[in-house]
């Protein structure tokens, strides 16, 4: 089914791209941080959609669960706790324009590398058939010859980070 020469896949891609980049711009430009957090969630959602298009359903699910469900909420909480959404004067540093230039140049350079493409073409244009499944991904995480060590290390890291975050952020009753 093709609508005016555009495949549904391309349509979906366009939609999620708009979500992703629009959300990102919202984060970058919004002066109200609560809205910024919401825009971030929008952007992350678009990213999850792109993952689905790239036939990485597990990552898409994790994106929604972890990123939107946890990190997005965490950001919202942090914004609320620091009450800085009322602080409308603080928005950009004095270097915002030069940052913009640098970011634009950087984008230009990446685009050159990707589209022109300077370092040789990106093959193939058409994605090959999907052979990797979520099951394989799960197996590779616990396979002694693949990722079991990084997987365990990352688990440790996550635990340490959670404990660390609690320790850092909790009120010290002794000092109060």
């Amino acid at each position, binding site marked *: 089914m093709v609508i005016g020469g555009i495949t549904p896949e391309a349509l979906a891609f366009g939609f999620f791209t708009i979500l992703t980049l629009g959300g990102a711009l919202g*984060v970058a430009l919004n002066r109200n*941080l609560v809205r910024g957090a919401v825009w971030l969630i929008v952007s992350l959602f678009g990213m999850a959609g792109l993952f689905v298009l790239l036939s990485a359903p597990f*990552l898409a699910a994790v994106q929604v669960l972890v990123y939107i469900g946890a990190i997005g909420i*965490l950001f919202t909480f942090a914004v609320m706790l620091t009450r800085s959404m009322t602080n409308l004067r603080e928005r950009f540093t004095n*270097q915002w324009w030069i940052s913009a230039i640098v970011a634009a140049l950087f984008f230009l350079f990446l685009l050159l590398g990707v589209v022109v493409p300077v370092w040789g073409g*990106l093959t193939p244009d*058409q994605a090959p058939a999907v052979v990797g499944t979520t099951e394989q991904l799960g197996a590779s995480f616990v396979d002694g010859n693949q990722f079991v060590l*990084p*997987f365990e290390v990352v688990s440790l*890291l996550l635990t340490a980070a959670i404990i660390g975050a609690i320790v850092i952020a909790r009120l010290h009753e002794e000092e109060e």
Partner: protein
Amino acid sequence: MVPLWMYLAVGAALFCIGTYTVLSRKNAIAILMGVELMLNAVNLNLVGFWRYQAPENMSGQAFAAFVLVIAAAEAAVGLAIIIAVYRSRRSVVVEDVDLLRW
């Protein structure tokens, strides 16, 4: 079928927006959000390359998953630090936190 370079271009755009956010915002939380955007852009690149160039090998996705976990850890610790700083300095503006400046 969307070609690979489009995904990469989206990733590049997202990365640059994230960079811009990190470089230009005064608020520490906004900066962290920018970092999250950058990490997401990297993830998109990883998964894109995996899908188009090595779909039989799961390492692209696995790597993306690790990036995701580390991003989550980083956000948790970063926000905790920001909250702690806010408690002591009553500000989350990066330029105000200059205890270690000469």
